[in-house]
């Protein structure tokens, strides 16, 4: 092609190009080709098609890597494709696809637009692509902002709903603040190394003392920005409001894909270039993790709104995942990846069930709305049980596997106190997850609620997330192999 855009560059960037093109095309076709209400389902087909194309591109990259080994860098070190990035790409792809599938009915019920929604989902995934694949600060930051801005819009997508508006505004303001922190930290990193490429930053950081003041400043500000993005305490204030106000399936998407993408960046930074300074950031992260588990688990106990409850639960999960990073051993990092994978599926599944509860004129996000779900939709109720058990981390579900590896990593590296704290809070978590289970199975049905209408997309989504949650718990071998492959660079 040319020296500015080589064949390798194209091969690496292709999935992002496809996603962005399909996203823009969905925005355009919404009013150019499918203006009628009946034709809306074609927009969903477009989303599936776009994901399929991107999937093929990812698959080609994966098979290339498997065949030739090593990894592919492109654009003078701005992007990289390795097994680690591909792990997250597959995760984002699955999350976006499932979120898109379950959204159709919800959007119909809430009388909102379809074209912008599916288009923005794909554009958000494009941003995530750069978070997982970027190895250069500016790319990472612009990718993060692309994703974040898309999420501000998606959170406020229910324009007629005041809670959604409020959530979007809060998320926007706090998100911008955190981006400011992050980019300040990035600028200090640039000052340390004179380059925005992670490889050169790594060399500069390694040459410094772990307690070097400028380095601590960089780690502190960039870390604070990232903690905002993954909703870890004490930077979690936006999460309950944003989760509650957002359309339900966007809450699920926000809790899974956005969090996973931010973790992709976090791991890439802290395990890679900032790794040598572990001495300075390890206590910080440990404190954040403990605080997240404390606040998340204790605040979740008193919630009556299911979405708020799951928001606090997701804060506590962020704490668990951070513990894996604190452990820092290969087991711990593997635990982080496994945890992110299983967390994505079980949380998406839980929100999927909540999404299907939405009816004309009501969001269906109060914990009482779950009452008598066993009678109204036994399938949903059983899947909800699986997700809750898994979220609580009880074997034989997938949630146990994630916690197991995190704790194993902690014990392996001698962080016994942290392991004990984590285990104690896991017990607390069982209480509030089972409040939901109790509402679903034990408490009597509301008078006016009839049986649920379930769309095909919801069925597919439930089957995939539920089956994965169960299967990974019972037969974890493939997932472990995938995670192992991702961390062995």
């Amino acid at each position, binding site marked *: 092609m040319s020296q500015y855009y080589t064949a390798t560059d194209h091969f690496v960037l292709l999935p992002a190009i496809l996603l962005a093109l399909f996203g*823009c095309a969905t925005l355009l076709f919404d009013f150019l080709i499918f203006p009628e209400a009946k034709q809306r389902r074609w927009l969903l087909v477009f989303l599936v098609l776009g994901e399929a194309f991107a999937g093929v591109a990812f698959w080609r990259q994966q098979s290339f890597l498997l065949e030739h080994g090593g990894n592919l860098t492109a654009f003078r070190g*701005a992007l990289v494709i390795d097994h680690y990035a591909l792990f997250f790409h597959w995760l984002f792809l699955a999350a976006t696809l499932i979120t898109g599938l379950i959204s159709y009915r919800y959007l119909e019920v809430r009388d909102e637009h379809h074209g912008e929604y599916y288009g*923005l989902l794909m*554009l958000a995934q494009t941003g995530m692509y750069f978070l997982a694949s970027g190895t250069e600060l500016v*790319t990472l*930051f612009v990718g993060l902002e*692309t994703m974040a*801005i898309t999420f501000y*819009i998606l959170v406020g997508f229910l324009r007629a709903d005041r809670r959604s508006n409020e959530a979007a505004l809060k998320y926007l303001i706090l998100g911008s603040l955190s981006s400011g922190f992050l980019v300040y930290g990035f600028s200090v990193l640039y000052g340390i190394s004179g380059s925005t490429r992670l490889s050169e930053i790594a060399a500069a950081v390694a040459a410094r003392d772990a307690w070097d*003041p400028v380095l601590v400043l960089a780690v502190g500000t960039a870390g604070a920005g990232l903690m905002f993005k993954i909703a870890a305490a004490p930077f979690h204030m936006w999460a309950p409001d944003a989760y509650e106000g957002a359309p339900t399936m966007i809450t699920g998407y926000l809790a899974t894909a956005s969090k996973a993408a931010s973790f992709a960046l976090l791991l890439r930074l802290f395990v890679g270039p900032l790794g040598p300074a572990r001495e300075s950031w390890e206590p910080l992260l440990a404190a954040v993790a403990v605080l997240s588990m404390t606040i998340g688990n204790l605040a979740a106990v008193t919630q009556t709104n299911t979405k708020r409850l799951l928001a606090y639960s997701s804060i506590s999960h962020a704490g668990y995942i951070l513990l894996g990073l604190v452990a820092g051993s290969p087991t711990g990092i593997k635990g982080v990846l496994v945890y992110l994978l299983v967390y994505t599926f079980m949380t998406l599944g839980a929100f999927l069930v909540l999404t299907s509860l939405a009816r004309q004129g009501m969001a269906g996000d109060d914990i009482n709305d779950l009452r008598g779900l066993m009678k109204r939709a036994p399938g949903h109720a059983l899947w909800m049980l699986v997700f809750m058990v898994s979220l609580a981390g009880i074997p034989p579900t997938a949630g146990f596997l994630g916690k197991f590896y995190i704790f194993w990593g902690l014990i392996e590296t001698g962080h016994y106190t942290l392991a004990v704290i984590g285990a104690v809070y896991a017990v607390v978590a069982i209480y509030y997850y089972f409040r939901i289970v109790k509402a679903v199975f034990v408490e009597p049905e509301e008078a006016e609620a009839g049986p649920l209408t379930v769309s095909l997309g919801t069925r597919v989504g439930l089957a995939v997330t539920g089956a994965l949650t169960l299967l990974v718990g019972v037969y974890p071998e493939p997932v472990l192999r995938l995670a192992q492959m991702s961390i062995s660079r």
Partner: protein
Amino acid sequence: MTETVFFYCFAALAVAGAILTVTMRNAVHCAISLIASLGGVAGLYLMLHAEFLFAVQIVLYIGGIMVLFLFVIMLVNLEAAARERQFHRSWVGGLLCAGGTGAMLAWFWLRGAGTLRLPPAVQPTPREGGNVESLAMVLFRDYLVPFELASLLLLVAIVGGVMMAKKRI
């Protein structure tokens, strides 16, 4: 010598403008202070021989964004908002936070000053007498990906802006 004087003038303009932006009561005065602040930053760019950035800063920020700011301020009725003292009530807390953060940053920087390693500034090419071409190489070769991605980001922001503002799309 002259350079130093100019630097302090522009820096003072930028800082004073920024402070006035948050302390003035009248929204239009705030916007004008912000213009002064942005102008000071533009001057700093000029001192760094980043002429292109200087011109772009003026065209985009002062000529484009701030004009739109003023536009919105004049169209929106700010009388009611001005009477509510919500933002001014917590100025002690705000000042403490700002001062604390500033002191912390200052401490870090004083401890670590002089350890930064920055690449040398791009020298003007002899033919051009400026660095527009070097800037183009940086933007379209070294940082091609973020540059193109930024256009996607702006597209998303536009879509969001239109969506939030319009009643029926």
